[in-house]
């Protein structure tokens, strides 16, 4: 009985958040996906060349879907309302994190299938690596968002990381975002593990701020 009540609660929170917060972001991510084949070649590519559109543009989906997770509560009225609710806000944040990651995985997979249909050599490593890239970019933005509660800065940090990777990629070692273009998948493991760490730390920091806010 208790279990089904929790499931219903999770579903209801997810449903409301998906509709009001996630849908516009998903639309933006889909626009990026549609633009990718227009800007890049996505026909008959080997795995090295296929990594170019995946690493350079599809990975940006992570910034769009993950960074704004704490955004609704940056509005004071919504924060007051959330603080007054029985449900712990960390619980809501975790639900948002989970559906955003599911969104990233699904979109990357849809685009990978599209590339396979056009004769590209897409491997499991390439799909996983793209997901790791996207999650890492999103996670550092989410972490910034938890620390600063400032939306523009939260988007600025992953963009700067992206630009620095473009201009001095060799200096980033295991945190190189564009390693798959050189058939090196090793950094993607580091990126994936770090992204999980950043997300967990971000949620915990936010939890700390929320508790402090409730006490005040």
């Amino acid at each position, binding site marked *: 009985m208790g279990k089904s009540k929790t499931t219903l609660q999770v579903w209801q929170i997810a449903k409301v958040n998906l509709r009001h917060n996630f849908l516009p972001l998903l639309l933006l991510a889909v626009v990026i996906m549609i633009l990718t084949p227009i800007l890049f070649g996505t026909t008959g590519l080997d795995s090295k060349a296929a990594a170019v559109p995946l690493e350079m*543009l599809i990975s940006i989906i992570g910034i769009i879907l993950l960074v704004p997770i704490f955004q609704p509560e940056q509005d004071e009225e919504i924060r007051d309302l959330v603080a007054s609710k029985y449900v712990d806000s960390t619980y809501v944040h975790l639900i948002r994190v989970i559906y955003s990651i599911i969104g990233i995985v699904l979109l990357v997979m849809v685009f990978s299938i599209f590339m396979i249909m056009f004769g590209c050599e897409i491997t499991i490593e390439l799909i996983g690596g793209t997901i790791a890239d996207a999650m890492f970019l999103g996670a550092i933005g989410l972490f910034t968002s938890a620390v600063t509660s400032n939306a523009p800065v939260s988007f600025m940090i992953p963009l700067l990381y992206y*630009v620095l990777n473009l201009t001095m990629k060799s200096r980033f070692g295991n945190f190189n975002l564009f390693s798959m273009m050189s058939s090196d998948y090793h950094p993607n493991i580091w990126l994936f593990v770090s992204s999980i760490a950043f997300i967990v730390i971000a949620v915990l920091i936010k939890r700390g701020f929320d508790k402090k806010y409730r006490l005040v």
Partner: protein
Amino acid sequence: MLLVKEIKKTLFSITFVVFMTALLVMAVSQDVIDFSYDIITEPKLGEDYGIQQKEIPELIMPAAFSSLYNEFIANEYIAYPIGFYKNVKLSEADREKMAEIISVLSDVSVDDLLGYDVSSNTQDKMVITLDGSQNYAVQEDGSIIISKDDEVSEIKDNMEVTLSAEISYEEFKKCMKRADDIIGGGSNYSEDSLLRYSYVAVTYEDAVKSYQLIESADKFTGAYARFFCDYVGVILSVLPVFIAVAVCLKDRRAKMNDLIYARKTSSFRLMVSRYFAVVIAVMLPTVILAYISNSTVWGEYSGMSIDYLAPLKYTIGWLMPSVMIAAAIGMFFTELTETPIAIAIHGLWWFIDLNAGVNRLRGIHNLFELTPRHNSLRNTQIFLDEFNTLTTNRLLITGVALLFVAATVIVYEQKRRGKLGSYGKIKNYIAGMANRKSKSAS
């Protein structure tokens, strides 16, 4: 004074702190903060002066033709339409058009070019009838026998199709442009790319001429200021959008909108002050950094005529229009939607322009570029040749930026009068649509 207040507000924000850090990191990581390691010296006889691209038809024509023919045979064309690799496969209709171009260049007929199929040369014997008058026979050894009417000719599987000696360079360039158009642009046959087939060693005379141009036209410091702007421009074309978005969203977050709406200050004064506050806040540290970078070489040219105003001229003329458009787009879309959507809109333009800029690194410019590129301390002649295009581009970008500012003033005024809503309404509409769908489904 409102402008000073707005500048202070911008300078003491976390967004500005991150911007400053990014500016410094970019300048240091790209080695444009200290030029003392890269002094431009007068060439001496016997030195290696490097290589350069030079338009030499005798080098370009055979190499480009051979490349086009090989790509035609494989039906795979490498192109970089926005700076990234694209593998273009032509449709049958476009392949025929390409065959016509190669036919003009080589005097080999279109039918011969299209009938030649490398994938069939391992068959025992295959006869392809094209139009009743032509027969192709592929034999065991890979050779092809083409019979047309009573005439029989033999072509090996690496059929030799060479450039006709009668083609003029002008005609050749026209054909290459057509080929580039068919591929979709950014191919190895675009006007700029053709030069890549023609690298020659820089002669002593060329090196001296280049040095003298840097000495007379750039007065040395101009070359360094231009190179600084090339790198710093990459991030200055995008970061101001974040600052502008942050400044505009701050009122909303602090619930100050209604209070400001009720003030006497006109929308024009408020928006224009806010806009120029962002531009000034961004440009001030940039000019200082440009001077710090440039001054690292002043001592090396003591006694020579150098332009101490070059860093100022270049940062204002080269960088400020990019800063202005980024800030204007940031303010307009933030006031219109009350969301950070401007970051996505401007970010996309910046991303496309940045990658398209790879083809302009030598110092080539176009009318609609966001970030001018000139990734070299030299190439002064190219800079002078392209100066008019660059000036027009910078004026155009400045004009568009001011139009966006005017539009922001109008939007703000309409919001003040309660005649314009925000993105919230659009968002509610999307959510409402989803609601209606789920209700009708249940």
